[in-house]
């Protein structure tokens, strides 16, 4: 028998509220399957289970708030457990006893599983509150997903916007969580900062050339080249892909870049693109688009919030030329990219206009030094000059 625990989905998460179960006692569960929705300060998260078997008993009911690590249910496993107890996700402060990583999808997550309604957690919760049965609703979201607007239309002729859930409360809680993490980071992590300017002419030309022959659904954004270059560069400076466990850095075997996504009502999430270094640009691009869509809809999964090994943030779309970010503990580095601007550039003794971009590294000086950070940024630059190799 194994326990399905309340996961930790961030360094400062201490408790979560069980919002809904997708399974009932007696149902089969498969490793990686989403079995519950949990409300945190980062919004409602779909929580995956990391063991296969049969859900034996539910211990926490919807609406209950319990501390991280509290057993939510028991699972009768199909096979002998590989670890003494199986948790829904790893504890973020240490990875010494981390459970097996979730199975990584080879492509964009599949559409509706048999018998599972395609509805965002926020819409599901709203349907419960408004007494609307979501089964049979016509979904207007991506892939036919039922959105909160669909639920509202079904409930009554209410205005489509703004929405009923206390968004201001959620934003306030999220900001409080972010504030705690950032204060802790500044207090505990001796940051050092590096920046470099990268000539983006070749990667931009390569991307434009690729997109000329691609349909819309297959087009690349240059930002996916940045993510892949960072991931590959981390292979050469693995000390930047680590967590601080309170006493020392623990290097992580896998590279899961947390891609910072701002939430328009306030707040920020940085869900993981799993195994960023191993994925092709095409797969990464589809995963990135899916991740942004689900972050906007409040449909992120627990492993996406708990698994990032480093954070990459870009304010290029907002016109910011450079940023020096605050490391998200227990990570030990953060990479920032600015907007692309045209600047005078020296090429073979001649001054020519070039489209350039600032790349920055915020590093934890307990773990790495400026020299290693500089090698990392140089490698990112080198990789971007060979975009066909990404």
């Amino acid at each position: 028998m194994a326990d399905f625990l309340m996961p930790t989905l961030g360094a400062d998460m201490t408790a979560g509220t069980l919002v809904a179960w997708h399974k009932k006692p007696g149902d089969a569960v498969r490793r990686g399957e989403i079995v519950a929705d949990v409300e945190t300060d980062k919004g409602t998260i779909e929580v995956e289970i990391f063991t296969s078997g049969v859900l034996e008993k539910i211990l926490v009911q919807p609406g209950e708030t319990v501390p991280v690590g509290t057993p939510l249910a028991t699972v009768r496993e199909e096979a002998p457990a590989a670890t003494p107890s199986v948790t829904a996700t790893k504890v973020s402060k240490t990875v010494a006893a981390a459970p097996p990583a979730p199975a990584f999808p080879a492509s964009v997550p599949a559409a509706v599983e048999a018998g599972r309604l395609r509805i965002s957690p926020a819409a599901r919760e709203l349907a419960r509150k408004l007494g609307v049965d979501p089964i049979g609703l016509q979904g207007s979201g991506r892939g036919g997903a039922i959105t909160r607007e669909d639920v509202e239309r079904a409930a009554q002729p209410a205005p489509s916007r703004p929405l009923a859930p206390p968004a201001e409360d959620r934003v306030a809680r999220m900001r409080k969580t972010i504030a705690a993490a950032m204060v802790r980071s500044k207090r505990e992590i001796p940051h050092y900062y590096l920046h470099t300017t990268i000539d983006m002419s070749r990667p931009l030309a390569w991307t434009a050339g690729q997109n000329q022959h691609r349909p819309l659904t297959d087009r690349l954004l240059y930002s996916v080249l940045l993510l892949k270059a960072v991931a590959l560069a981390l292979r050469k400076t693995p000390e930047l892909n680590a967590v601080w466990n309170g006493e020392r850095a623990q290097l992580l075997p896998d590279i899961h870049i947390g891609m910072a996504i701002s939430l328009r009502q306030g707040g920020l999430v940085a869900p993981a693109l799993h195994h960023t270094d191993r994925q092709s640009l095409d797969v990464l691009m589809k995963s990135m688009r899916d991740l942004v869509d689900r972050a906007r809809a409040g449909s992120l999964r627990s492993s996406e919030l708990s698994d990032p090994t480093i954070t990459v943030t870009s304010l290029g779309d907002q016109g910011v030329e450079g940023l020096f970010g605050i490391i998200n503990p227990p990570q030990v580095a953060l990479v920032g990219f600015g907007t692309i601007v045209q600047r005078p550039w020296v090429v073979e003794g001649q001054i020519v206009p070039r489209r350039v971009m600032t790349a920055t590294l915020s590093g934890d000086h307990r773990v790495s030094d400026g020299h290693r950070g500089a090698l990392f940024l140089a490698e990112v630059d080198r990789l971007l000059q060979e975009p066909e190799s990404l």
Partner: protein
Amino acid sequence: MTRDDLRTIVLRHLGDRAPEADLTRLRPDRSFRDQLDLDSVDFLNFLIALNKELGIEVPEQDYPHLVTLNGCLDYLGKRLVK
């Protein structure tokens, strides 16, 4: 398809990208990316959604034509006629 029909479609897909926004206040002559705080991924997802519904492939060099609501309606309207 009338311009109003097209407007409804475009606003619906913009709403999917920015569900919290009040689209009744969207200025049609100003960049909706700025008004709705859409990033490049949101914009691409918006174009893909339009492509799925209208069957219009937008080349990259035409992206600047679709930064405002009026621009979208003008561009898509012409493409639909063709």
